[in-house]
């Protein structure tokens, strides 16, 4: 499988199939399985993501949730106070085995969901994703809202980058790495810029006919879903079997 190019299997797969897979994975992740099952899924997803999006992008995705994982780890000693001691300082039980298990389970679930959704978004162009959601019954306006939201996030990120560049261009000395607090003016500027665009975007949508009492049509179309049924079944059965094996084991 050559997934690292945009012609890879995941990129070519039907977006409806990918959404169903993500839903199956999400459900599986929350089944009361032994930790080995979600761990196995996480490793599998990591390998798939590596092959589809590259190691750098995969690590970046994990790094983006690292702060949340760290906070969870810091709070974990407070969660399960009763039980077998896992880490102690003198007579004081810092961390119980139950708390450690809980932390591991939640962290693995969190990474699985992050990797799965990031893979879905990375390997599916926005219009295909919207079409897939529409084929599952999402209305035109709701899908437009999703589309605008998906566009808004990178737009804010792009604005953030440009305003950051603009700041850098106005400094007297080359910029060294900025302290966290120094991001605030750029972030505030980017948000103000994005918020300012909202009324104009609303007006543009109206000028383009949004609000008409006409059933909207689709410009793009996905290929018939039956073409995706066989791989869907294969993936579904495979996932279910894996789940059963781990659960039973």
């Amino acid at each position, binding site marked *: 499988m050559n997934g690292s190019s945009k012609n890879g299997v995941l990129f070519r797969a039907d977006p409806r199939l990918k959404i169903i897979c993500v839903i199956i994975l999400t459900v599986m992740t929350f089944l009361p399985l032994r930790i080995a099952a979600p761990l196995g899924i996480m490793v599998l997803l990591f390998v798939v993501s590596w092959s589809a999006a590259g190691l750098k992008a995969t690590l970046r995705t994990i790094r983006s949730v690292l702060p949340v994982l760290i906070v969870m780890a810091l709070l974990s000693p407070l969660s399960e106070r009763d039980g077998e001691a896992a880490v102690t300082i003198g007579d004081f039980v810092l961390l119980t085995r139950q708390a450690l298990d809980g932390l591991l389970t939640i962290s693995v679930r969190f990474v699985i969901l992050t990797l799965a959704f990031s893979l879905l978004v990375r390997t599916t162009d926005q219009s295909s994703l919207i079409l897939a959601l529409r084929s599952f019954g999402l209305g035109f306006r709701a899908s437009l809202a999703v589309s605008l939201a998906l566009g808004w996030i990178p737009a804010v990120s792009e604005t953030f980058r440009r305003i950051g560049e603009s700041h850098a261009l106005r400094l007297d000395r080359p910029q060294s790495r900025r302290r966290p607090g120094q991001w605030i003016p750029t972030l505030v500027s980017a948000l103000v810029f994005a918020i300012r665009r909202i009324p104009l975007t609303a007006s543009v949508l109206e000028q383009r006919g949004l609000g*008409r009492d006409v059933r909207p049509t689709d410009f793009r179309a996905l290929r018939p879903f039956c073409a995706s049924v066989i791989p869907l079944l294969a993936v579904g059965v495979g996932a279910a079997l894996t789940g059963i094996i781990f659960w039973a084991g």
Partner: protein
Amino acid sequence: MILQVRNLVFSYRNYQKTGGPFLPPTLDGLNLDVREGEHVLILGECGSGKTTLTRILTGTVPKYINGNLTGSITVNTKNVLETPPWEMTGDIGLVAQNSDEQIICPVVADEVAFALQTAGIKRPVMLRTVEDALRKNGLSAKAEAPTGVLSGGEKKRLLLASLDAVNPALRILDETFDELDGQGKADLAQRILSDGGAIILLACRPQDVYRGVFDSFYFLKDGRLQKTDEETALAAGGGDWPAFEDTGGEQCVEASGVTVVRDGGFRVIVPRFVFRQGEVIALCGPNGSGKTSFARALVGLDDVPEGRFSLEKDRRTVTIGYLFQNPDYQLFLPTVREELSWPDGRGDVDGVCAQLGLDPSSVAAVLSYPERKLVQVGTYCLLNRPFYVLDEVEGSLGYEDCRRIISLLRRNGAGILLITHDPVVASWAGRRYVITGSVMEEAR
């Protein structure tokens, strides 16, 4: 009549602590009649109310931008002030001055198709219409490209294609010629002549390409339209501008064997580029040829995979001032004074405001697009860099304003690189680089 405007008066809401609830009227008793198929050119200086007029005609103002409006507007017998904008899609369409405000879809073809989707057009018809509109505007090869990677000129073409797909009875073009390259301007002029629909073009300065294209000419001044004739209109703001003299200087930025690569997939090869302090040089090339990408590499915002510059990347960022094509990416503080004072409040803010005709206490976000450009210029005047790159500075500004800006920036002997599509602006440069195909070389 396709359009009738009667005694239109509009004042923006006043967001400052002093004064009444509304600012002095931007439009003050404006009247306009446009016949079916008539081509109207409205010329107005920076901040004269051109964009306000387009926003009123298309329903953005006062619904989404507050203000006090009186008068009447009829388009195709519909009262604009009482009819929802979605019911006027086939009557009136706009290409906005700032393309980024109008592009809503992530992919080029989807943008063109959007209004057809909301109109419930059947898919086979939609596919044909979109294909035709893209072909007419030279964007067939970019149908599946992300809209975010288009150049300024390509974005204008995309908005024109979106209008072509809907084919409204009246098209309003706000400074639409500005970011188009020479061929794009000629094509648009030819299409205005051949399409047969009514068109209003609003522009800050006349261009030669307008000759023979329009039927009626107006100046927008003091909130009203003054009728004029073609000769007077096309001569307005013109003049025999000399090239800027090379004042000499010690510093120099050079690039050798540089290759610039961009998301859109293109690459520009720059065998040799020399930029000396004190001189004014120009960089020209078609839309999407890589002018802005080279500028970004030159000022140290982007890396280059091959070649080298005589100054390190970090040093270039603080040595070369770069005025982005879109000023909104460089303005982020509430008032003009705060904006010009960032980051450490140095320099003669009031003096620069006086030179640029700006009120330091005004709210930057509610200034007109050209005024925001002037604020952008003001920030760099105070930085006093030895080099500046001006990316299509003439957009939405008159020639006199452009010359004033260039003179102001080089008052201490700075070198200026003008990225431009305008032959008049390019003629002010002592030397000129041109991108042909994928190679950027000095024109002989």
